[in-house]
């Protein structure tokens, strides 16, 4: 009896860790629930319930003994698709019976602690080039390409820098978009750029919460009402921060 209880808690631990890593790195709500249920199923807990919101997960397993429930808190969220992929492949291996509970927990724990990202210069180049490309896609002129690249790069650089200095996301996004607006106005007044609006829209794109907005609507449709609403609120806050930062510059014109 004693052994069985601790076994159920082990299963919950593995499921929660997998769910946490996925949710923190941008996995969709339904995928997180699905993965946790599958893992529990593979370890022999056929009846499990999960409640997933962007800020926490509650997971419980029912069995012959009283059902057991645990909670995990999620405080910061980023987008790291590499980790989502790796959790997915770990859960596949669990389902096919290749991993014991202890092995699975160790691998997930290592994955959670790991920080394997593209180097910052690479990200900076990607954000800058993407800004320039968005300018062209939104029917800007090629003359404005370089200003958009520079403004977008400056914006991305400052959002990363401010994120390190101030832990409040709203503030760093506000400051970054303020800097983008400043750079864009500077380029236009110097005669390097032509269309202020297009340059700003292009360079703001790496900051815009496009993914969040779409995921929010999708969660709402899938019936994850709480997740959908809270993701929508997060997206709205970000959009507001960006708009306010730009507006501060524009109102000085």
């Amino acid at each position, binding site marked *: 009896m004693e052994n069985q209880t601790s076994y159920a808690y082990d299963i919950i631990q593995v499921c929660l860790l997998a769910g946490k890593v996925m949710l923190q790195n941008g996995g969709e709500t339904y995928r997180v629930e699905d993965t946790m249920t599958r893992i529990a199923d593979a370890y022999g807990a056929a009846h499990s319930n999960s409640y997933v919101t962007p800020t926490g997960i509650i997971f419980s397993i029912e069995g012959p003994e009283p059902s057991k429930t645990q909670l995990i808190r999620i405080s910061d969220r980023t987008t790291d698709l590499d980790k989502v992929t790796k959790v997915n492949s770990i859960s596949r291996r669990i389902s096919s019976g290749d991993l014991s509970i202890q092995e699975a927990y160790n691998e997930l724990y290592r994955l959670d602690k790991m920080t394997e990202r593209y180097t910052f210069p690479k990200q900076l180049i990607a954000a800058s*080039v993407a800004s320039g490309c968005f300018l062209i896609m939104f029917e800007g002129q090629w003359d404005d390409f370089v200003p958009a690249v520079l403004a977008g790069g400056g914006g991305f650089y400052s959002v990363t820098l401010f994120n390190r200095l101030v832990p409040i996301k709203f503030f760093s996004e506000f400051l970054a978009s303020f800097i983008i607006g400043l750079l864009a106005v500077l380029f236009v007044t110097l005669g390097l750029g032509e269309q202020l609006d297009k340059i700003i829209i292009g360079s703001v794109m790496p900051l815009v919460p496009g993914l969040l907005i779409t995921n929010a609507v999708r969660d709402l449709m899938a019936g994850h009402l709480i997740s959908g609403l809270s993701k929508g609120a997060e997206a709205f806050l970000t959009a507001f921060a960006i708009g306010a930062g730009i507006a501060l510059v524009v109102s000085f014109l």
Partner: protein
Amino acid sequence: MTLIAQILTSFVASAAFGLLFNAPKSSLIKGGFVGMCGWMIYYVMEASGIDVVVATVTASFFIAVISQVFAKMYRTPVIIFSVAGIIPLVPGGLAYDAMRNFVQNDYNNAINLAAKAFMISGSIAVGLVFSEVINQIIRHSTLTRRQKQ
């Protein structure tokens, strides 16, 4: 000429976003391809005078279909390909315009633009969900056929 520029920039922009989202290296080119297809569908439809919402639904539907095919081929989550592909369609410009009008006290314009941005992001989601539903129906029907045999 503009078409070539659009193809090129949408490919690069989607791949770059894949990098920002830390997608695995091998999926960057594929993500760029998905984004390029989606944007070209949207661009051509919009240029030929079709409503933006309809164009967005169609484009996001095809993005999801291509992503699902890729996901099945490479045994990875769909999100890796679809995220990068959707980014060009997202009404970031509209949302920005709306916010700018809000803070400049031009509420009428702002509400207009915000409603439009909401409609477009809703239609992206509809396209995604629609293709998912079809995918599930196909999978379900092949499963039941196999069970009958």
